[in-house]
């Protein structure tokens, strides 16, 4: 079949990114339109393919250059990776829509912005779909380098500083990942994930632990895990507004996916679930604690984002069906809601140079719709009932109750209380404080408004009618737990 093929998610953005400078010579508007058309196509393709996988149960496997899996590189679009890819395409389209007229920048800058945007999404999709561990490293670098470029995009801010910090930590991460890959390769003689998973017991135990720790640290950095996430708040706050949403919903999710694939499929899970649990909990507590003290709105959102990553790691570490189910649900919800928050916050704080929370007080009357959408997102992420966030937290608590983790439930509920405090503080400032009047409010463009309203509608739709996604999540959760099925899909044995 020519019209749909998972390879398009990576090959087409690369193809058009290379050609975009030439499109720009034909007509200046094309550099904005071409990525949009591409994302619209991906949107349709993802829904078609996900539906197909869901109905027939047959995943899409691409063998690049026609070589069977252990010999060549393969791409896997199954129930789990397909679901993540679908949500990345939805968000990529919305990010494009939001930034279509985001800034009246010079032509050269707009060109670079869209090229880097296309490549950062292609890189994240590559990390998720590829079945080859070295290929995953290459996509990690693509995602990383385009993120550095986007973080340093604005002149006026401290973007270069944040980007340098990000680059430093990212380079250390990629060194760790490469060392882990080398260890595995010298022991097993293969780079294919399914093949490694099949033969992992053949590795010397000491080398296996070393390789696991190296890979875990490396991908943990990209997923904003606890000790190595100092780069994240700076990158989030210095990058352009929509890119904060990209980091929260795509790159960190891709890193998280790599961690999950690593622990569930490649290495034996039971031995490492404690590590995932402890790191997740530390990430959660550390980030939520710091978020409480933030004075700048984007930094607060960034720390809240890191906290959610911790929560998702804890959910996956339960190693039960319900835990994985809750984890995937949390991943999707977080991607949707945090994007809405970043979108609206970046319009609210548009003209404030330092982006302090106090700068936006009283904007509830000045920018009613944007403020309302921000408040909606805040309530959704805390987990209030009519929104999608409620269901994911509900399933999480259910999973914890099933494991009889009473202390954990109390802890999570109190963390939610902390979230409530710092989000309500902003909402309170928005609606019940007098405007300071130092900054001119900036009303959103129609396209930004449309993107935000679409996101809000999706969040409410999932909240009112969760069956919209739970069927797919159910299949995905079964898929990720089933190591043998993944090996069968990739290698055909």
């Amino acid at each position, binding site marked *: 079949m020519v019209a749909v093929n998972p390879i398009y998610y990576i090959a087409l953005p690369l193809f058009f990114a290379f050609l975009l400078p030439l499109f720009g010579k034909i007509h200046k508007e094309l550099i904005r339109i071409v990525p949009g058309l591409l994302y619209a196509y991906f949107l349709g393709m993802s829904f078609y393919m996900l539906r197909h996988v869901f109905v027939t149960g047959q995943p899409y496997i691409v063998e690049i250059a026609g070589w069977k899996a252990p010999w060549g590189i393969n791409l896997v679009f199954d129930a789990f990776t397909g679901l993540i890819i679908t949500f990345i395409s939805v968000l990529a389209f919305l990010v494009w829509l939001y930034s279509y007229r985001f800034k009246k920048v010079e032509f050269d800058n707009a060109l670079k912005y869209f090229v880097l945007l296309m490549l950062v999404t292609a890189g994240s999709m590559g990390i998720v779909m590829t079945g080859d561990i070295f290929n995953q490293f290459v996509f990690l670098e693509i995602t990383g380098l385009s993120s*550095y470029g986007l973080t340093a995009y604005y002149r006026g801010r401290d973007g*270069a500083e944040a980007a340098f910090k990000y*680059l*430093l930590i990212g380079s250390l991460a990629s*060194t760790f990942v490469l060392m882990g890959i080398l260890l595995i*390769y010298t022991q097993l003689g293969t780079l294919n994930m399914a093949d490694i998973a099949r033969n992992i017991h053949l590795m010397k135990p000491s080398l296996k632990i070393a390789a696991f720790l190296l890979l875990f640290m490396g991908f943990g950095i990209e997923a904003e895990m606890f000790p190595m996430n100092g780069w994240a708040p700076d990158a989030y706050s210095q990058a352009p507004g929509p890119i904060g949403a990209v980091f929260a919903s795509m790159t960190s999710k891709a890193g998280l996916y790599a961690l999950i694939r690593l622990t569930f499929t490649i290495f034996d899970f039971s031995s490492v679930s404690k590590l995932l649990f402890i790191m997740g909990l530390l990430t959660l507590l550390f980030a939520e604690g710091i978020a409480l003290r933030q004075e700048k709105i984007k930094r607060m959102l960034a720390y809240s984002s890191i906290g959610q990553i911790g929560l998702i790691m804890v959910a996956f570490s339960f190693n039960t069906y319900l835990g994985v189910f809750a984890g995937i649900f949390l991943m999707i919800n977080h991607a949707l809601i945090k994007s809405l928050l970043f979108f609206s916050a970046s319009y609210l704080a548009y003209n404030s140079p330092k982006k302090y929370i106090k700068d936006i007080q009283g904007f509830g009357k000045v920018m009613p719709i944007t403020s309302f959408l921000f408040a909606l997102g805040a309530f959704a992420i805390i987990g209030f009932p009519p929104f999608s966030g409620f269901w994911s937290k509900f399933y999480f608590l259910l999973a914890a109750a099933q494991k009889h983790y009473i202390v954990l439930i109390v802890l999570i509920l109190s963390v939610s209380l902390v979230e409530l405090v710092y989000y309500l503080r902003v909402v309170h400032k928005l609606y019940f404080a007098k405007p300071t009047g130092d900054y001119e409010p900036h009303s959103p463009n129609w396209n930004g408004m449309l993107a935000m309203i679409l996101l809000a509608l999706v969040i409410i739709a999932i909240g009112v009618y969760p069956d919209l996604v739970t069927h797919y999540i159910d299949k995905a959760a079964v898929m990720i737990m089933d190591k043998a099925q993944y090996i069968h899909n990739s290698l055909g044995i």
Partner: protein
Amino acid sequence: MDNILILKIAFIGASITLLFIGLYAVLTKRNLIKIVLGLSIMDNGLNLLFITMGFVKHGTAPIFSPLVMEKLKTVDAAAQVMVDPVVQALVLTAIVIGFGVTAVALALVLRLYRHHNTTNIDEIRNLKW
């Protein structure tokens, strides 16, 4: 001692030492350019480690040139004595990626210098480190 054992210690020792000297520079140095230099030394050490791990004793380069084919006649016989080509392909990729990262890092250093007029990391602290 056996020659091959000395070679093994020399290659692995050199690459690991390079890697961790680079890491030391990244962790302790305060000068931005020195830090990038440290990253580049780390990359070099890692690449040597890759190639070392693919070496086979008495191996030849993985090229079926007319010269090799004349000596060993068949493809199968030639393939037996060659070093592992996969690590070489991986290192090619890693070298080029490393160069790209270094170039971007140096561009960031230059912009930081223009903005703050220093390359010392202690004096560039608008954000928390």
